[in-house]
């Protein structure tokens, strides 16, 4: 479990990235932080592995304040996946995945063998192991990034807009893959995105953030749609328009679900 208690982050230039945030991220669930740029969602994520230290307040993992843990040790125990993969360009795929286990002192043979298994886990062919990151497609690189994040079998997996830089088709594929993985592994995932559809698809809990680093609402997708906390949330999730504002139309005795623009979205199951 990850818990933020009254966490504020003000950068030296005076910008307040996160303002008095209280939030609990339940274990073995996916929490998605969503908001436009400048809402402090990435800063919030990076406070979990101390890439950013809060100005005030506490971040706790299973009840222990992260500020009391050596940052390097902390980071080696937490999976981290970032946009554009962040792989080391001069190391082969297998060595990139084995990076953290090797830092923790696992033997080279063991780390490599485990890295190959992780390629299977993320749905990549083992023949890619000896390639360099630049020789892979964007989607493949992201999968390697996920494999690296999983390499030490961490309880927590932080994902900072991991699918932000791939095309929509690959993105949809990676999202499904993540859902499958999460079904098998049950990690505590914290996922940052600016895409509300992605947030609703992946999140057990969705945290909607607004400018100035405040939380507007933290709830399940269903709850957010049913009871948006305020106009900002309603507007952000698009509850009153487009493909989310659905109504029923009767066609030849069947109920057709139609969106706000009159486009059919599906048939109501009887």
């Amino acid at each position, binding site marked *: 479990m990850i818990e933020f208690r009254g966490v504020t982050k003000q950068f030296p230039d005076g910008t307040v990235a996160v303002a008095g945030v209280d939030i609990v991220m339940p274990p073995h669930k996916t929490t998605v932080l969503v908001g436009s740029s400048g809402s402090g969602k990435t800063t919030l994520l*990076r406070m979990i*592995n101390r*890439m950013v230290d809060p100005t005030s307040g506490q971040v706790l993992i299973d009840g222990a304040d992260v500020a009391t843990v050596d940052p*390097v*040790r*902390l*980071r*080696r*125990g937490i999976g*981290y996946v*970032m946009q*554009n*993969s*962040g*792989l*080391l*360009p*001069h*190391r*082969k795929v297998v060595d990139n995945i084995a*990076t*953290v286990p090797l*830092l923790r002192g696992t033997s080279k043979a063991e780390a490599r063998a485990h890295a190959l298994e992780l390629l299977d886990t993320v749905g990549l062919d083992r023949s890619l192991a000896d390639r*360099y*990151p*630049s*020789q892979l497609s964007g989607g493949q690189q992201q999968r390697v990034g996920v494999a*690296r994040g999983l390499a030490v079998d961490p309880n927590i997996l932080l994902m900072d807009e991991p699918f932000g830089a791939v095309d929509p088709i690959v993105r949809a594929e990676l999202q499904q893959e993540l859902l499958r993985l999460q079904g098998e592994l049950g990690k505590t995932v914290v996922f940052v995105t600016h895409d509300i559809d992605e947030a609703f698809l992946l999140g057990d809990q969705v945290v909607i953030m607004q400018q100035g680093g405040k939380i507007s609402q933290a709830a399940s997708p269903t709850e957010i749609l049913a009871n948006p906390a305020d106009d900002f949330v309603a507007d952000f999730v698009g509850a009153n328009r487009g493909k989310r504002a659905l109504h029923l139309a009767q066609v030849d005795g069947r109920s057709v679900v139609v969106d706000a623009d009159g486009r059919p979205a599906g048939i109501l199951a009887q």
Partner: protein
Amino acid sequence: MNLFLDALAWLFDPAQWSGSGSIPQRIGEHVWISLVVLLIASAIALPVGAIIGHSGRGREVAIRVSGGLRALPTLGVLTLFGLWIGIGLSAPILALVILAIPPLLAGAYAGFESVDRHTIDAARAVGMRESQIVGKVELPLGMPILVGGIRSATLQIIATATLAAFIADAGLGRFIFEGLKIRDYGEMLGGSILVIILALVVDGCFAVTQRLVVPAGVRAARSPELRSAPARPRAVVGHAINEGNQ
């Protein structure tokens, strides 16, 4: 043309190739002085450049100091040190170290700085210590530019080490100064040719090294099968060799 023939005659005169003050001995001295200077200057400039490139701090100061050092006329510095320290190798070595520091410093910080911030951030986020980021990420990725700096510095040292002969009995500069004194222009030109050949040979070695230190993964990114001649941006380090003609 006559002068050139004189130079060739001097170069191939067997008398120049053995005994005290022979060509092989002078080449040996020249290489030795250059090596000592390179090692001392590297020991000072490379760690400082690495720290600047890694932290991003002190860059402005480094640029100003390098600029200042570059503006110093080496012959003037050498004369000053010669008067201060006296005849011998210490003064020229010191003067050459000052000459070599700017390109080494520039190569080191440009190399470390050239590494994608995104990659470094990722390395830190997965749990690398700062020293591991320097050694395992920034050094290998910045190596080609770093070697470029060493290459530029080495050429300047070799060219300018001729000045060592101004106040010490050492190096290929002996032939130039001696030729000037006794108006043997064949010897003077012959000595110059030897310096040029030495510089070209060493530069060739560095050119090969610079290619070899490009990490395989980076090289793979630069030349996928379809692009045979990738436009690769190169950092410009160092400056043109214009020493020794004051």
